[in-house]
């Protein structure tokens, strides 16, 4: 038994020494670190994407925000900020987003649900001039001022000069009774 123990000791020592000669401690740490980070990231990716899609107000989308037929633009009348240095959610640099806005609903073809869209205008620079888009679904005459897109919505901003329009998802439409 003692002989066997000695043999194991010797074998183990030999293996350990060989391993130590072949590899550096940093190398092992690097490999181990890579394994840890990699193992963490691989299962997270699809899970994180699924979680983001289920969050309210963050619909799964399709289409090009720089194109007039993008689903959120169903009631828009103006220049698309996506073509003017901003995006469908943000104003181009040097302009200010109007806090006063007109609001409607659009159907998202990706999930078939209706979302509440806020068409905040970006103000403070002359008209962008690119990607004029006029779809006007649900637009009402001026006697229904909160539902008309024909007025200048640069209200509550330091300048009333219209530049372009955004289309921000602010909620999900209530479809019950």
């Amino acid at each position: 038994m003692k002989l066997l123990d000695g043999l194991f000791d010797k074998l183990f020592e030999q293996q350990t020494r060989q391993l130590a000669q072949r590899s550096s401690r940093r190398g092992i740490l690097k490999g181990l670190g890579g394994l840890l980070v990699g193992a963490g990231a691989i299962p997270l990716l699809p899970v994180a994407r699924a979680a983001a899609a289920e969050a309210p107000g963050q619909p799964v989308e399709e289409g090009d925000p720089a194109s007039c037929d993008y689903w959120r633009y169903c009631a828009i009348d103006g220049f698309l900020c996506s073509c003017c240095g901003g995006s469908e959610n943000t104003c181009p640099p040097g302009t200010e987003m109007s806090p006063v806005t007109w609001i409607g609903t659009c159907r998202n073809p990706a999930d078939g649900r209706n979302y509440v869209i806020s068409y905040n205008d970006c103000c403070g620079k002359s008209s962008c001039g690119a990607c004029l888009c006029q779809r006007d679904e649900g637009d009402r005459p001026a006697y229904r001022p909160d539902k008309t897109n024909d007025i200048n919505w640069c209200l509550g901003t330091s300048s009333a000069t219209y530049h372009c329009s955004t289309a921000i998802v602010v909620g999900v439409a209530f479809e019950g009774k």
Partner: protein
Amino acid sequence: MKTGLTILAMLLTTSAVAGELNLQRAQFNYQMSCQGCHAPDGSGANSVPRMLDHVGNFLVTQTGREYLVRVPGSAVSALDDAELAEVLNWIVVEFAGSSAKESFEPYSSQEVGRLRQQPLNEVVQYRAQLLADIASANMRE
């Protein structure tokens, strides 16, 4: 927030009298009919009156309570009486904040239907006078 929750609990328990308070429906109707000017959190903008931490002040007097229904944004909105009552109750729950009062009798669709028959025209002057009256009513307490 605590007062808001108390009011909410009260609204839910008195729903048989005041009509149902469906939070999702109320918020959607707020978004579609009010939020464009009053902002998502009721903070308003420049000349658009602030409701956040303020709307509860109007509930101190009967005239103030009626005012919230008679302002053009309420009275001539596209919402029907039940929807308008629900949105007003939701606004009080959601935005009154530090201005919330201990007791709030929720608006009913009948009350709203009656009051919106007399919409206000000179809102700015009327509001200024109303707030002055409310301030003196608070001083007397």
